[in-house]
């Protein structure tokens, strides 16, 4: 299994990093509100797909753009990028904030998104099982909210954290706050989820402390085509915690596309 190739694109003035691996039909992965753990655990997807992992503006290896401050700005940004990449129809996978973005992209580009995988997405207001407000979690407890098995941070979190490491986290939190400072959901999202008519998988860690697994059923109520798959003993960063996460995606999406 080969690693990623990094490509750079000028997307409407934003220097955008795109990591790709493998051959086949395109599968785009929208990451969550941080790039701390990298994306190597997604590489099994490259065995069946042309795996495309862009870094959002203001995250990881992509440049900042303070004017990207709404979900719609992200959708437009990716319309631009996909034009450059020559990606038309695609399988779209998104985790957390990336899941919300993928759902929104799917609502607007229903006919392009062939298959949709929403991994513990934010975006929905579920008063009985609310999303943890990530901004209020004390720094020293944050990792415990992200994963059950903290060993997945061994290689990516310096102890003690260096000023440079903290500044990079602050930068990504700033990018997140531009869109989500007030709240991490859109009360009107349920009104439009019916447009997600493509095969849709809701993939969730059963021990998710940020977006409770009980929200999966609420998403499924609004998306008639959705199936739910939950992963036992897994937290929010499900790809970091178990290879079953990519396995579940290959099982769901790998059959439906011509290689």
């Amino acid at each position, binding site marked *: 299994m080969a690693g990623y190739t990094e490509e750079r694109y000028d997307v409407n003035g934003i220097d955008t990093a795109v990591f790709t691996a493998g051959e086949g039909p395109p599968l785009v992965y929208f990451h969550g509100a941080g790039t701390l753990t990298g994306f190597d655990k997604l590489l099994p997807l490259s065995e069946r797909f042309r795996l495309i992992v862009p870094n959002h503006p203001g995250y990881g290896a992509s440049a*900042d753009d*303070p004017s990207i*401050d709404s979900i719609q700005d992200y959708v437009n940004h990716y319309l631009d990028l996909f034009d450059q990449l020559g990606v038309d129809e695609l399988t779209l996978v998104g985790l957390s904030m990336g899941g919300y973005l993928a759902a929104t992209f799917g609502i607007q580009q229903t006919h392009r998104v062939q298959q949709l995988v929403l991994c513990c997405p934010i975006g929905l207001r579920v008063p009985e099982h609310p999303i943890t407000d990530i*901004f209020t979690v*004390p*720094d020293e407890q944050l990792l415990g909210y992200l994963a059950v098995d903290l060993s997945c941070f061994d290689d990516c979190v310096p102890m003690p954290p260096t*000023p*440079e490491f*903290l*500044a*990079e986290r*602050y*930068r990504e*939190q*700033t990018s*997140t*706050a*531009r869109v989500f*400072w*007030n709240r991490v959901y859109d009360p009107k999202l349920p009104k439009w989820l019916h447009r997600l008519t493509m095969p849709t998988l809701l993939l969730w860690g059963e021990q998710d402390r940020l977006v409770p697994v009980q929200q999966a059923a609420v998403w499924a109520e609004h998306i008639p085509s959705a199936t739910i798959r939950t992963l036992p003993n897994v937290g929010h960063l499900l790809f970091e915690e178990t290879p079953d996460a990519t396995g579940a995606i290959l099982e769901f999406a790998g059959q439906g596309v011509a290689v």
Partner: protein
Amino acid sequence: MSVVDDMKFYFFHHNHYAEVPKDHERYDATWVIPPAGELFDAEKAHNFYRHHLRMFKLADDLGFDGLCLNEHHNTVYSMTPAVSVMASAVSQVTSRAKIMVAGVPINLTTPNRLAEEYAMLDCISGGRMEFAFPLGTGMEYWSNNGQINPTSSRARFRESLDVLLKAWTTEEPMSYDGDFYNFRYLNPWPKPYQKPYPKLFVVGSGSMETVEVALDFDMGYSLVFVPIPVQLKAFARIREMAEQKGKTVTPDDLIIVVIAYVADTDEEAMREARPYIEKFWSWFHRVPPKFLLPPGYVSTSEFLRRASDAALAHGTEATFEDMVDISRTIIGSPDTVADTIAQWAEEADCSRINVVLEHADMPEWMTVKNMTLFANEVIPRIRAKGTKATVTESRELAAVGS
């Protein structure tokens, strides 16, 4: 001509919820999340407000040039989350001194409404108002996230000031079309009593951005609690930048904040004041670092600068001596306090002093004693250092000092 010739002394009062619980160690924060159920008592609050108004009245009677009050939210530090309400009350128990509101974070409200509110105060007080505009501490953004986003705070701050000044100075109803605000009929009523408007300042912590805002809007510049070298650097920066822009910054455009306690001798002053000033830092400034810098409140490079500076990163662990060293805290006899403040003013080339004289939960008699000594013993000593001071005054003071 010396800077002390035109010194102005403002009684800067924090309006604390002035009670420190015996078991204060068990509280992590007195900002943003202090539990009101455990710490707030409405009857005590009523008495604190009465106390604070008495102190403003006393300061007016004692001859302070001005009275200064500010606004914070969700905190025992300040009982004035709607500071204009308090300023209105202050205007009615005083008659002479200027009243500086320093101030409503303009991002927390709409600028046309603040233009109305401040114009009301100026008319009510008969032109005694001055205003200083803070960006708002990081904590205000946690306490009011539904209204404001720290990531756009600086851009909104600029536009809001622009709206407010236009609202005050335009004679006809006008429209305004900005990035954050759009007004069809901007036409606040009343307009300020003072023409074109009261003396204005920006409150900053020394960053390039706030310094530039002050100059661009022709306002003075006031500093919050930051280390003295940072203050001096900020003043140097504003003068340098002013020169580039062809503007002048006078000593009357700059404010330094001084924490002072006066008693007959240095020893007595330290013995009396120290426990309260310690509590001022340890209880009234109990802020988890996370609350100081919400995401986007500063740039990533500024964040890195602060995270790399051990003193800034671990400021909450500073000792009493550290705090006295880096801040403008002066505790001592009238001579000690007068000499130090005069020296600070000259160093900073700044003629406005906002002096804090009530510290933490100190009893009212101590505040009254401190205020009285400062007004009657310290201010005349400082004025006597000026070139305008007459020989007679100097003799009288020498007699007092002996």
